[in-house]
């Protein structure tokens, strides 16, 4: 028995084990040291956590778009980050106009709803356009082909929007009603964070119910199981795929507004990093799995806000926040190494995945 086990282990497993163990060791030692030094108060840690959850819920909303499309088409929709950007960037002009007219001050609730509507509509338009032009003709092509098209679409959209709206950073107007924060004991939470977390939770709940309990949702799940059999059951596969893109893009548009409210800055390149992070989140949770994307987003947000300080501060790394992207990507590598199907994903066979 022991002999057989030893025979099965090969060079890759050993190398992987060493890489994984050293990374985990680094994390444990770093966290332990940071906590032992006690440079940070409970209040600060709670701040990091709240920030992480807010950031994570934005990631989760974008991640849902990746997961939905991946679940159905088995492809990474690289242009999804630009779908996210297009909504927030376009809605900026409405926000600016409303701020100048004083509408945001007098009716903040309606104004934000209008922004959501504009952003989601733009994102849906762009998302559907990309699907129609770049992906639909390639349904049966080898897998590398749509992936490269997606990268091309992403670049094309980025620089088209740069050409249309200019390459400067645009500052979103401040919403007076969302200023300030609430405090309970050590927990301090800004109003914007409350809005972000609540609206993300609502949207995700809505999506979950839609996919689980409506006829379209059922059809979507059927198509993601097997396109051909779904077509035999009388499902219009193309229409369902378009609806999936609409759903994902609408969530990305909403995430765009939440992102803009939080960071109050938009630019044609703003989609790139959140896009990769959201994809990472989707993989973390198990790609193709809707609750997984939500969970993965939250995890990633937390890791990013708490991680740099917790893991690296104790190791005397200067300016650990610069390395937060490194932590996010390292997480991705670790998850793929030890649980390639993600936190909630079921084990898929190679062919199906």
């Amino acid at each position: 028995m022991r002999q057989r086990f030893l025979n099965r282990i090969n060079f890759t497993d050993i190398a992987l084990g060493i890489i994984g163990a050293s990374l985990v060791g680094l994390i444990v030692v770093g966290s332990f040291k940071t906590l032992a030094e006690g440079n940070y108060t409970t209040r600060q840690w709670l701040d990091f956590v709240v920030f992480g959850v807010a950031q994570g819920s934005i990631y989760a909303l974008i991640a849902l778009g990746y997961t939905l499309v991946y679940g159905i088409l088995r492809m990474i929709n690289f242009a999804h980050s630009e779908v996210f950007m297009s909504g927030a960037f376009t809605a900026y002009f409405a926000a600016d106009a409303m701020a100048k007219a004083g509408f945001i001050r007098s009716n903040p609730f309606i104004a934000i709803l209008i922004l959501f509507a504009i952003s989601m509509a733009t994102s849906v338009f762009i998302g559907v356009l990309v699907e129609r032009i770049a992906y639909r003709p390639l349904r049966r092509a080898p897998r590398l082909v749509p992936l490269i098209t997606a990268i091309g679409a992403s670049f094309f959209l980025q620089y088209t929007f740069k050409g249309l709206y200019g390459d400067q950073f645009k500052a979103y107007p401040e919403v007076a009603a969302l200023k300030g924060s609430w405090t309970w004991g050590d927990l301090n939470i800004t109003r914007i964070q409350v809005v972000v977390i609540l609206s993300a939770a609502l949207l995700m709940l809505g999506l979950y119910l839609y996919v689980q309990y409506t006829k379209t949702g059922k059809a979507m799940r059927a198509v993601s199981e097997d396109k051909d059999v779904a077509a035999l059951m009388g499902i219009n596969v193309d229409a369902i795929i378009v609806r999936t893109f609409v759903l994902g893009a609408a969530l990305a548009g909403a995430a765009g507004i939440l992102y803009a409210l939080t960071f109050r800055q938009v630019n044609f390149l703003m989609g790139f990093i959140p896009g990769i992070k959201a994809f990472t989140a989707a993989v973390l949770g198990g790609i193709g799995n809707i609750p997984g994307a939500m969970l993965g987003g939250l995890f990633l947000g937390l890791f990013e806000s708490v991680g740099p300080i917790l893991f690296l501060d104790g190791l005397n790394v200067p300016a650990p926040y610069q390395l937060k992207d490194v932590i996010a990507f390292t997480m991705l590598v670790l998850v793929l190494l030890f649980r390639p199907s993600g936190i909630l994903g079921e084990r898929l066979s190679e062919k199906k995945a």
Partner: protein
Amino acid sequence: MEHESKTPWWLKALQTGLIGGVVAVLSCLIGMIESFHERDIIAGQITMGETVLLLIVITFSYFSSRGTEDTALPKRLTSGALTGLVTGGLVAGLVLLGKWVNLREILVNASPNLYKILTFEMENTTTALAYLLIAGTVIGLLTALLHLIPTVWRRAVIYGLTIVSLIALLQDLIRITLTRFPQITEALAWMFGSRGQEGLSVNGAIAVFLIVTALNYASATRGDSIRSRVRALPTGTQQGLRWGSWLLLFAFLLIWPRIAGPYLSEVTNGIGLFILMGLGLNIVVGYAGLLDLGYVAFFALGAYTMAVLTTTGGEITANFEWTFWQALPAAIFMAVLAGVVLGIPVLKIRGDYLAIITLGFGEIIRIMFLSDFLKPYFGGSFGIVLIASPTFGNLRFNTPQTLYYVILAGCLLALFVAYRLRDSRMGRAWKAIREDEDVAQAMGINLTSTKLLAFAMGAAFGGLGGAIFASKLSTVYPHSFVFLVSINVLALIIVGGMGSLPGVIVGALLLVGLPEFLREFSEFRNLIFGALLIAMMLSKPEGFLPEAVHRRELHEADNAANTAGT
């Protein structure tokens, strides 16, 4: 498919026209037309901006008037005219809208200058709009008439027009090269107009067009005979001819910096570095089918290794002060090591995840070099300065014209290695993995070592390129190694044809060389790259100079459909 054929032909023409119009309006609004307007194709007659608009109308009218063999002539003509009219109409609509509303509040490029271009600098808007509509219709009609010309002539005419535009666009390049030969100044002045900055002169354009068209016609009608005459020669002579032409090409490459001068040599060096990287990535993506989006990481590692080992000053705490040749193997070794370290985890990862992991890896490397954490070793955002250039005896390769030979040697070496690997046992194993991993494994191919070797080989070329890059600039900064570089390399091997070696060279010439000479073009470089990637994948996924196997594979579905149909 079926419902498409039920759409009436005029509705189809209308749709095509609408798409064409949207494309035209978009190219106006992103500032392309205005920016291209500054360059003349034919001095004082037509600018590049106008040419692009013209091309859009022609392309879409051409498609809508294509029809089948037996489509009636009036139908075709009306189709073309209708498409042109609608396209022109949308542009006219943009002008009209711009007159009423100030679009510039949102769309930064909707400038008065753009409207001036679109209205042919006329005062009266109504006349100008009528002009736009008429021009669209007439061009559409003329394009439809193109179908009536015999194919040989049509091809010759299109070819002639393309070459005229190309020569006009590349006039800077041609001028810089040819002004070094004072004997032909007069001919140049005649061809390019007296002022000398503004594209071809009318005479020059006509002359070039006539010559090229005639040549193309001649080669189309008689071209086969040359090829067959070569084929008819005995094998020995054929081989001699082939070797002779290779030798000629090699001799030309050797004397190129002398002809080209410093500026062109510098551009050539840039192209050479991209060829080097392209050859490396071609092994990973083209041969082994592993999509690597973080290729720039190996380039960066090679560059930084070279920098750290040879720098003779600056802020960082390293004083190895090696020579270029000592550091070169180390740079390649570091890149290979990184390739293997990245390769190991990646082996277990499913296809698409690979893309995102490698992308993440590229970003990790860049962020690390940029961070304050490693600043004492890599200089953070200040980078590393004073990097050694290669020396050989008393010869220092520090000018573009001398450095050219180092890059040429690197490229030739990489070409040789890639060429020999292609059909080797390993090359065939890579291709087998690309086609089907499971079957390849069943055939006894060791997936682990084969994939790792692909990564290592690709990384080695990248590292070599990076090392030369560092000593070429004699400084390195983290911002030279952004994601965009990976995409540029990927785009060039895709345009050339995945897995094809000549494709890499052509791709690099097109995507890296051309933008150097077209300042206006380089502004829209990334946008055009994106559009090119989509267009290539939709219409010609095998690239312009495809590898034979790849072409067959990617058109398998078409072939199957054809055989099923007949």
